[in-house]
Each structure stands twice: as C-alpha cells, then as structure tokens.
C-alpha cells in the first residue's frame, strides 16, 4: 500500500509558481526526506499535504484515500514545525492532550495516551511544565508527542531540528528515526541539511525549483547522483568534463584538459560518449608512488579538520583536485608542496548528466 501519494501538484503564491506538476509516491511505513535549498518548494509540498496550501491543480492521497479537498482538521495528519509551535498558554500535558480532547476521548484514556506519548519521547514527568520552561530540544520532543498521540495516518516534519545546536541535532535525528521505526508511520521530512537526509531516510527526494531531481535511497543518491545539482547538494566532489574512449579493452575517460582516467565498464554503462565524471573527495587516495590510474600532483593547500584533513592537489597546469584523508596518526598529515600521486578506483567515478 502507498502511505502517501501526490499527483501532478501545481501550487503558487500569487504569481510565483512554486510547484509545477510534482508527483511523489511513498510506500506505507517509509521515511522519505524532501531535501533541497530554500525556495525549492519542499515546505510548500509539505503544506499542500497538510492542507494549508491549496494546489491549483493535482491530487493528494493519504493511505490511498483522496484528501486534497478536505480541510486540515479533517486529514488526521501529524505535523511538527520548525519553531515547535507549542501552545504557550498550555502545559506539556495539555499540549499533548489537545488533539485527544478534540476527539472527545475519556479522561482516563486521554491521560493514558498522553503518558504513553511522553514515554515515547522520553519526557515522562514533564507534564506540568509550560513550554517556556522547556529547552528547545524538549519542546521539539513535546511537539513530536503532540503530533503522534492522535495516531495520525502520516507524519509530516518541517525542518524540526534546524533551530537546535549540532550535538542535539545529531542526537534527535537518531531519536526521531527510532520513534519512526517503532511506530511504522509513513513520514515526510523536510530539510535543507543533507546529512539529516542521508542519516534518517529510507528514501531521499532532492528538489530544485519545484522539480524532483532524483528519488532514491541515501546511498544511491550519494554514490550515483543523477546530475551535477544532486551531486553538489548531497556532498562535494571533483568534476571532470570530457569523453569516453576505449583503448586496448580499457575504458578511459579523457578530460578536456588532457587527463586520462580509467573508469569501470559498469560506471560507463548507458552514458553518452561526452559526459561528466564526479569523484567524491574521500574516494581519492594519496600516495608517494605511481600506481595504475594515478595522476602526479603537488599539494597546494592543507586544511586540518581534526579527524580529517582536506587537501587541494594541483594536477597539471590548472586543475586542483580535492581529497579528504583520515588522520589516523599525525605523521600521516601532509604538508603543502609535497609531491604526491592521486588515484581512485575505476568504480569510484560517478557519471552524471551535466
């Protein structure tokens, strides 16, 4: 069964068209992240599903039931906002109980379910606190509990972690993921943070200008980006423009600036002769001696980042290759001016549409 389906959604604010015929299918129980820069339409799509933005065209199905003509309060969708949106005049208990009171549940059942929800987000004992007496992370967990306690058909999260500091964000990512796995709720998660997208999701949809650029598992998106935009958005990398040429049974990629790179047949499969190679910096290894498929260069810049170091390596007259190495031992830290060879496996070059 599909947990959520949007079909050919068109939406606009005034004359500003944000979504132009976007379609997306989410299998029941899956965690899907909408990833993209601000203004790409990801929040608009979420608000269309929630019912706060009326699409000019298109359909929304929740559990294969059409909902786009229903007002938000009839959709039974759990919603978590970036700024938490807890009711400031209600205690944590009343915030979580809000949806249950509207559903006219008995007092005892209400308090049982509120207790259960607070346990799920590990905030038992916080019932009587007002939102202003809670930290940002606690507020966000109460907001999760409030959205989950109504047993929604799907859960929508709109950049729920972006107001929190890094440590808390890393922690809550895993917590949200584990709550989602426990509840098996179909979840749509909006973020501009590519790490969040990669860490939490079953599927990631990368959006740009209201169009899904690529939909796939986090590893697929990272290892086989469909185009330059996706490749750049979910990470960084070295770009080589050129054409394929087969020489003595070896698949080579000859870049426009004259470098010759060996690429595996699998990677080549289906690509045009004139293509773009994309190589992630952590795939590149730096060595002192020449190997097969290696390029000689000079380290031009060193950025020490604690666990890793980033090197710019000048190869040929005008190309800098970015490589990231783990610093397992301080003796391994290289310095600018070192003569080195860079190489990477023929399997590590992703072929992207330019």
């Amino acid at each position, binding site marked *: 069964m599909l947990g959520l389906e949007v079909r050919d959604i068109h939406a606009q604010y005034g004359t500003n068209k944000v979504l132009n015929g976007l379609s997306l299918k989410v299998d029941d129980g899956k965690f899907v992240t909408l990833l993209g820069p601000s203004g790409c339409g990801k929040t608009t799509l979420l608000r269309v599903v929630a019912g706060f933005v009326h699409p000019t065209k298109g359909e929304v199905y929740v559990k294969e039931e059409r909902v786009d003509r229903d007002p938000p*309060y*009839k*959709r039974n969708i759990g919603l978590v906002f970036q700024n938490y949106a807890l009711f400031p005049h209600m205690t944590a208990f009343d915030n979580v109980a809000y*949806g249950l009171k509207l559903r006219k549940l008995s007092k005892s059942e209400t308090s049982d379910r509120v207790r259960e929800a607070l346990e799920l987000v590990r905030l038992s004992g916080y019932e009587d606190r*007002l939102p202003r007496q809670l930290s940002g992370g606690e507020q966000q967990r109460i907001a999760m509990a*409030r959205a989950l306690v109504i047993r929604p058909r799907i859960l929508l999260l709109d950049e729920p972690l972006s107001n929190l500091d890094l440590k808390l964000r890393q922690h809550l990512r895993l917590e949200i993921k584990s709550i989602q796995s426990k509840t098996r709720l179909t979840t749509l998660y909006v973020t501009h943070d590519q790490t969040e997208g990669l860490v939490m999701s079953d599927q990631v949809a990368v959006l740009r200008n209201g169009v899904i650029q690529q939909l796939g598992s986090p590893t697929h998106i990272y290892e086989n980006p469909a185009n330059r935009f996706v490749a750049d958005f979910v990470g960084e990398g070295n770009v080589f423009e050129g054409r394929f040429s087969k020489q003595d049974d070896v698949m080579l990629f000859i870049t426009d600036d004259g470098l010759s790179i060996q690429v595996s047949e699998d990677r080549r499969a289906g690509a045009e002769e004139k293509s773009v190679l994309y190589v992630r910096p952590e795939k590149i290894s730096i060595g002192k001696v020449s190997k097969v498929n290696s390029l000689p260069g000079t380290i031009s810049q060193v950025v020490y980042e604690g666990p890793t170091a980033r090197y710019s390596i000048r190869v040929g007259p005008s190309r800098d290759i970015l490589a990231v190495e783990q610093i397992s031992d301080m003796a391994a830290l290289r310095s600018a001016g070192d003569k080195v060879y860079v190489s990477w496996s023929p399997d590590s070059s992703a072929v992207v549409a330019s």
Partner: protein
Amino acid sequence: MNVSNVIRRYSLVVFVAAVGVILFGMFFLVPMFLLLRTSFWQYAPNLGSMRYMRPAFTLENYANVLTGAYLDIDILTIRIGLVCTVAAVTLSYPLAYWFARYNGHANLKRFVLITLIASFLVGTIARVFAWFMMLTGGGFVNALISLFGLERVRFLGTELAIELCQVQYLMSIATLSLISPLKNVDPRLEEASKSLGAEEIRTFLNVTLPLSLPGIVASSLLCFAVSVSAFVTPMVLGKGAILMVSNMVYTYYLDISNYPLGSAFAVVLLLTSFISMYVLEKVLLSRVRI
C-alpha cells in the same frame, strides 16, 4: 573597555534620564499630589482674598462625592465607561483580526487604516459637533429612521448619544491597539491546532483568543480610561441633562470655586481607572498563563 569610559558613558545616560525623571516628577507627580491633598481640605468660601479653602484634614468631600446624587453620577460615569469599552473592543476585535491575520486587500486596508488614524486625530470639538449634527431632530440619523417610516428618536441629551460618539472614537484606539497583539499570535499555532483536529472557530477560541487576551485587556483599559474621563462629549451631546464626573470637576472648580470637592471628584475618577486596571490585570490575566 576602559573604566573611565564606562563611567563617562554611564553617567551621561544617568544624567539624561534624570532630566526626564525630574521633569516628569515636577509636572506630573507634584500636581497629582496637590490634587490629592486639596481633596482632603475644607471648602471655605468666605476667607476672602481669593482663598476658598482651608488646609484642614477632612473626609467630608469624599463623603459627598460617594453618596446621594453624586454617587449616581459616579455610577453613570462608570456605566457609560463600561458600555463604551465593551462595545468598542468587541466591534474593533474583528477589524483588528482582519488587519493582522489576512494577507491581501492591501488598498482597502490602507484606506481603513487612514480613516482610523484620521478619526483618532480629529479634535474632540470637531467630532462632537459633527455627531451633534448627525443626531439632531432633523439630522442624518433621524432622516434615515424616517425613511423606514419610524418615529423620530430624541438622541441629544441621552446616554446613547454620548455612547455612540465615544464608541466611534474608541474604535480607532481599540483597533490600532489590538492589531499588534493579534499579529504576535504565531500563525503556526493556529495551524498546529487545525492539524490536531480543531476547526476554525475552535482554533480561534482555544488558541487565538486566549493568546490575544493581554492585548484585549490593555486595549480595554485604554478605552475605559478615555471614556470615563469624557468631558466635552457629555457636555455637548448630553445637553446638560447628562453629567459625568469630569463635568462635576469642571463645575466645582470653575463655577463654584469649591476646589476640595472638585479635587475629590477628580481623585475618584483617577481611582476608578486604577482600580479597573488592577482588577483586569489580576482577575483576567491570572487565568491565562502566558
């Protein structure tokens, strides 16, 4: 940072603030104190040489103000104040809600806003006499009424005339003062309420209204303080038949030169505003934890 710099900067602030504090004290607190003191003195019309009172402590003035016919005037004043406040805030709330909560209608909003500000800025005399013309026997309102074949209504000299004019004026104050508290209610809270299953009216009652209550209280206090101290409006539209506390202050000060009794009326007027402020703050706001 250098210590002497801190002192220099800090003392400049203190100096500038002190000027304000001293001026405020001299021109507000001192007259207020004199008024309060006078209200406890004795009226003495026959002292001569322009002196009409004796500095002897008495509660007689308050006894006068708070009993008999004068008590009726106090009650009438408070009643007009309450009616005007409730009417003005109730009528203004939806208007302010529209301003704060709906996008669009930009031109209409600008027009309404200019009208409100103009109405706030038009002087009392102009407004009151404009209403006088509206409400006379052959005025606009009676012309409308007779269009429907109804009997003419006598407005001038009634409480209703005063209230109509006051409410119109207070609406500009109430609307302008309610817009910003309503804007401060995060629209996401209303969306959260709806997503949890509350339709529009329920969302309004559960979220928007309680969260805008401090604004309603502040706006009501403003309206009440303005309307109980009305002076020109009852004088003109009440045509001498309706007297409010301000009119008594005027009469006792300027017609009779009984400063102590006039002062007692003025103090009662002030206390009415202060007490209503206290009651609204304590009773209403304590129910909402914000």
